[in-house]
């Protein structure tokens, strides 16, 4: 009898998750909806007093996920994603850049579980309101340390789709914001709209920036002292700059923010430690064992420095070799 009561009690507890549990459920829904929902809309991106709007269409069907993004102002740009392949068309430069999206089977690609996120962020339910005329529920993620920024995410109440996202330095300082101004969600989204508007003419230049995947043990470099929660999610050797040797490109993420580390042969040159702030993204660069290490990511500069300075040669050092 006692055990029966216990089971019944557990059932009740299970049906009424804790407050943070609700917020985690919303994050799950958002994650799911971004992959399984068809949508088309116009969003406005703002950072540092600048804004740019773009049209985005996302369709999921038997062949996978297709996405098309077209800038409506600012630099002319069209991005076509088909599963993990991303093509960026730059019509004014007659240039197509082919790259890979962050999906795949790299060990540990499944970064953090939603529960793991709460080790590094305080996750709370936020207010409700309207975004793009739809009912939205806000979820707040406040960093538990100074190694990451905070986030506010508004999900569509009906479908779970992310409608608005803010990255914050503090509760009052918004670093960047992304929000739909209009959106259509559901199967009625016209599949024709994910087709590329531009086709590559014979005078277009194609840049293949996909690079080659590497296993972590083949990097030749070790990444020590990563900020808590950051794990490696990809590793490749790829071209970065014109007329420069290929770079080793490692990506780290805590599940929300991501940091790229590029390791290039130094060729004897020494780069003084440099911090740059590029809107919401910071860059830190220094020399490590005759290699130039450049860390780029949407994290506070102190976290970038920590990641970059934790780069040490493994035995034998082979990074940067062509």
């Amino acid at each position: 009898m006692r055990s029966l009561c216990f089971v019944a009690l557990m059932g009740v507890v299970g049906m009424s998750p804790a407050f943070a549990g609700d917020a985690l459920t919303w994050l799950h829904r958002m994650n799911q909806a971004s992959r399984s929902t068809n949508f088309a809309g116009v969003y406005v991106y703002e950072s540092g007093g600048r804004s740019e709007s773009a049209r985005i269409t996302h369709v999921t069907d038997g062949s996978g996920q297709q996405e098309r993004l077209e800038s409506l102002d600012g630099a002319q740009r069209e991005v076509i994603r088909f599963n993990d392949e991303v093509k960026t068309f730059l019509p004014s430069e007659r240039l197509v850049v082919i790259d890979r999206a962050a999906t795949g089977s790299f060990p540990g690609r499944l970064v953090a579980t939603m529960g793991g996120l709460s080790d590094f962020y305080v996750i709370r339910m936020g207010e409700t309101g309207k975004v793009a005329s739809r009912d939205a529920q806000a979820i707040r993620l406040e960093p538990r340390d100074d190694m990451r920024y905070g986030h506010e995410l508004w999900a569509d109440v009906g479908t779970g789709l992310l409608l608005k996202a803010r990255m914050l330095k503090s509760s009052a300082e918004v670093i960047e914001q992304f929000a739909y101004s209009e959106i259509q969600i559901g199967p009625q989204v016209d599949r024709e709209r994910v087709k590329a508007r531009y086709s590559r003419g014979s005078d277009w230049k194609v840049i293949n920036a996909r690079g080659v995947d590497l296993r972590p043990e083949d990097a030749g470099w070790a990444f020590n002292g990563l900020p808590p929660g950051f794990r490696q999610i990809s590793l490749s050797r790829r071209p970065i700059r014109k007329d420069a040797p290929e770079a080793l490109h490692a990506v780290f993420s805590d599940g929300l923010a991501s940091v790229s580390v590029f390791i290039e042969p130094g060729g004897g040159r020494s780069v003084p430690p440099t911090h740059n702030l590029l809107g919401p993204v910071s860059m830190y660069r220094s020399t490590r064992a005759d290699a130039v290490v450049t860390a780029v990511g949407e994290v506070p500069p102190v976290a970038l420095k920590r990641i970059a300075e934790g780069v040490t040669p493994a035995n034998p050092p082979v990074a940067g070799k062509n």
Partner: protein
Amino acid sequence: MTNERISAWLDGELQGGTVAADAATREACEAWWLIGDVMRREKLLSPDFSLRVMQALENEPTVLAPRSAPVVAAERPAANMPRWMPVAAAVSGVVVVAWAMLGTRPDQRPAAEVAVVAKAAPAERNVLALVRAPAQQDDETRAYLLAHQANGRGVQMAGVSGYVRPVSFDQGLVASR
């Protein structure tokens, strides 16, 4: 000692310091950046730039835009957006940032830096950090951003791709294969 202080300042380890109020240190800072300029073959900023910035701080929070950036100067930050960005230094108080404007069309790209000035409590007015990423560095910088954005993700768990962030690219940024 001076170099150590600059280093500490850049690293965000100088808490509540008054780096820029110290004339010698300020000069050294400028020298540090000038060295960087030469190394990166950047356009030189007039040496008294930070002095002018500091004088401007005596006034109300201001957006400073050098003469050659009319388009950007015309864009006032939205009311709910910050007028400044955190920089290398976590120096409390006033922060001055000049950064390359990303995503601008080539014809609109500011030739000079844009300094955005904000200030905190009046008592902290003498605390100043100055970091800039001149426009001429953009090509190389954008190459890294492009690579980062395609592979990284913005709000990863929520499924937003990194490329929702605007970046303008220049020809020849990435090596052809």
